[in-house]
């Protein structure tokens, strides 16, 4: 969704970086609507395990995706300290559960490097590339595919 | 004090168009949706000029004009008939019913105002 910026020559983009466990990732700030603290979600029956449930966002029903689990990591133990990043993906608003927000980065799109081969398939399908910032490696997450893929299986 | 004109037409489109043309010319416009309603508004507003359609439900233009003319109070009020019907027959009926003048739709707003001005003076 933010690919337009990666046109020739590279342009400056802002990203929100966050932590999941020991790793850092980021997403284009243009898709971020707000950041809020964790509140317990209402479970959704027969949902994939990375969909924690839904919460009330000022009158709308917001699904919460455990980004760790989605990326193939162990699920996050959610407490009041965890954070939900509310993003817009396509026509829908969803909440991403992460451990903490770490930074706002301004980077040129030129700096986005391809994802290293060691990443798992799952991770690769969502991580578009990596950014090297201050010696840290920050994976850039592609939001569009997050909610699609093998879901909606009539159980 | 601007001159009041009563427009009687069951078509909202027509009422709107008449209102726009006439208010721009400085007239005050009151509206009615059919002949019966027109009689009501007439007694409340006592307009200087009446513009009425012919084909309307409840009480059509002819009936409306006749009743207006039948009322002493409104004897000399100019009534302009606004209609698409151009048959000689219908014109005569309107005339006989007591219409003062006849304007054919679609009307040119400049001409409409012109006629009204002459009739209202």
């Amino acid at each position, binding site marked *: 969704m933010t690919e337009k910026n990666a046109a020739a020559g590279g342009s400056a983009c802002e990203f929100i970086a966050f932590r999941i466990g020991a790793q850092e990732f980021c997403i284009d700030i243009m898709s971020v609507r707000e950041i809020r603290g964790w509140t317990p979600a209402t479970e959704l029956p027969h949902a994939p395990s990375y969909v924690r449930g839904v919460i009330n966002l000022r009158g709308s*029903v917001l699904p919460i995706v455990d980004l760790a689990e989605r990326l193939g990591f162990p699920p996050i133990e959610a407490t009041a300290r965890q954070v939900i990043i509310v993003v817009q993906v396509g026509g829908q608003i969803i909440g991403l559960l992460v451990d903490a927000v770490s930074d706002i980065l301004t980077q040129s799109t030129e700096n986005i490097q391809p994802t290293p081969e060691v990443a798992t398939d799952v991770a690769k399908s969502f991580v578009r590339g990596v950014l090297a910032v201050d010696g840290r490696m920050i994976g850039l997450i592609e939001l569009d595919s997050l909610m699609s893929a093998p879901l909606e299986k009539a159980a | 004090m601007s001159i009041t004109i009563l427009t009687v037409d069951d078509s*909202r489109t027509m009422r709107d168009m008449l209102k*726009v043309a006439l208010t721009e010319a400085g007239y005050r416009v009151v509206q009615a949706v059919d002949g019966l309603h027109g009689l009501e508004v007439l007694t409340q507003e006592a307009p200087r000029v009446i513009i009425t359609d012919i*084909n309307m439900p409840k009480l059509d233009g002819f009936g409306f004009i006749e009743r207006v003319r039948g009322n002493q109070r409104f004897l000399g009020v100019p009534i302009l008939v606004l209609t698409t019907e151009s048959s000689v027959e219908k014109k005569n009926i309107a005339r006989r019913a007591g219409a003062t003048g006849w304007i054919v739709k679609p009307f040119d707003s400049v001409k409409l105002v012109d006629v009204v001005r002459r009739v209202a003076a």
Partner: protein
Amino acid sequence: MDTMAAIRETFFQECEEQLGELEVGLVAMDEGEADSETVNAVFRAVHSIKGGAGAFKLDRLVRFAHKFETALDLVRSEKLALSTAVLKTMLRAADVLADLVKAARTDEPVDEARVESLIDELEGLAEQARGASGGDQANDQVEPLDFQPVMLSIDDEPEAAPTAATTYAIRLTPWPDLYRKGNETVRLLRELARLGEISTACDARALPLLDKLDPEGAYLTWRVELATAQDVAAIEEVFEFVVDDCELEIVPSRSGATGEAPRFSPIADIGVGPSAAEPIESRERSAPDGAARQDEARSQPPRAAQEVEKARPEQGRAEAAAPTIRVDLERVDRLINLVGELVINQAMLSQRVMEAGLARSSSVAAGLGALEQLTREIQEGVMAIRAQPVKPLFQRMSRIVRELTEATGKSVRLRTEGEATEVDRTVIERLADPLTHMIRNAVDHGVEPPDVRAAAGKAAQGEVKLSAAHRSGRIVIEVSDDGAGIDRPRVRAIAVKKELVAPDAQLSDADIDNLLFLPGFSTAASVSNISGRGVGMDVVKRSIQALGGRISISSRQGLGSTFSLSLPLTLAVLDGMVVKVADQTLVVPLTAIVETLRPKRSDVHALGLGGRVISDRGGFVPLIDVGQELGYRDGAADPFGGVVLVVETEVSTRCALVVDAIHDQRQVVIKSLEANYRQVPGIAAATILGDGRVALILDIDTFVARTNRAAPASEPLLAATG
């Protein structure tokens, strides 16, 4: 320009209304239920459209409307009889008119050939009528666009070269009627003055003495000398409207040698005497076109009187008299959302107050109660704003049936009931497609061809009935046909072929009927052109379900089929029972709940492998553990510690749902799950409770359906309902 755009929008909206009236009237005429007022209304509808179209220079539309109007006028004046053929033409013309309106609105092309063909038909009717009535009518001569409005000055500027000026001697003796009709001599003179130079003289010789003077009489004669370059026609035009009410003579006094006789000669030489006050008589005498006209004129008052009588009781009709305002739909939607939030907040407040223990205090309780009542009223009021009758939707169906009838060669008529039933606009909009598909299917597949029907001893014309009604807080819509009913062997065969069902499956009649709703079951082996790409009933079913509705089918061999839709009145709120299931709070739609009970051990029986039933009203109803089914817990809960809700599905089967406890019953605002997520099987939507948390709303039908698949052993029982 903005105003004109707004008025243009008004015009097209009005066209829709007029087209609706037209449809209603023609259908009534078709069914022999029309009176003269119906015919008038139909005429007026087309006339109105023509008038407005002319104002916006929509020539194609004007032209067609004019032809249509002419034909209708002939019917109205009883010069053209309403035969079936004539009505068919009228109905087709109405459809073409609707197309032309749409084309004019969206600036699209139309089927020119069809338009022309219908114009020919309409003209044919006019010919027919004229032929029958002796052909003396020529009132269709003029194209309205060419007609010169009267009472307008032809040319405001005087001719630069007055060389061609002729002097006319004009003698004008107005009769009292002239004034009575609002005309004034002064004005006429002023009009003349615009044509050229005039000088006037007044002849007051006929003026009687004061005591004999009738204040409403007319005794004066004006003599005017007018020098103008205009021709006689221009002068005559000034008097065109008063010509019946005066004595008038126009004589050129120069050039043209012998003063040509003026076009208008005084009809009768009444003379300007004291007896001039004879309004009615003068009318008669001045009738140039024959007695027929006056009869018509005289018949106007009685008709008008009748209309007044009729109009009295109709005064209550909101349409013409009640003021309306136009509001942006967006504003209404926003308002409705806000009111929804208000309801939630009010519920939250009530809850918090109760938790704080304040509700014991009667004044607080009373206040909360009043608040809840008020909120509910506001909500109902606001929902009513968006509520609309289904009539326009049904009328669209009417047209579809007409077109299909022509295309398929079958004879079908549409009967509608409950058109005035009001439904929230959001529901209506989303009903259009599914309803269209069902109607198409009914005509295409339901009703048999005339010969088949005849062979079966049925009337050649089939009937499709479309009805709407409010029933226990929902709207129920039925589409039924009197066709052959569902061909069950065939349906079953197709299902087997498409591997939707096992070849040896035991299926009841109802089961077979429901096969139609399975995805992948295309209704026609030969994809019918009419029904589109074999639009499956599964698509229809999903659309209805997405609306929070249910659809069911029943069919009788040889007699026909009926599709029943049950829809919420609005997509916004729902009356529900809030229950607790394994630490989760769920909402069960109240309309599905038949009863609640605390099960007794003696009532619960095991059946098959792990299945359980409960006895209820003489029958046995399968027990379903909600918590287990939704995956909230691994094993089934103990039904005796909880509560059982007996619910009824759309196919009228019953189930008993085991929940932990019932909280309360309340109206909840429906929040979409699909907006930001997707459809969850078994779940209809979500709502936000008083504590701000999201609670899921159970969708009984899909929920039960899923459990059925999981517990086939209990299937036979489903048929045994109380």
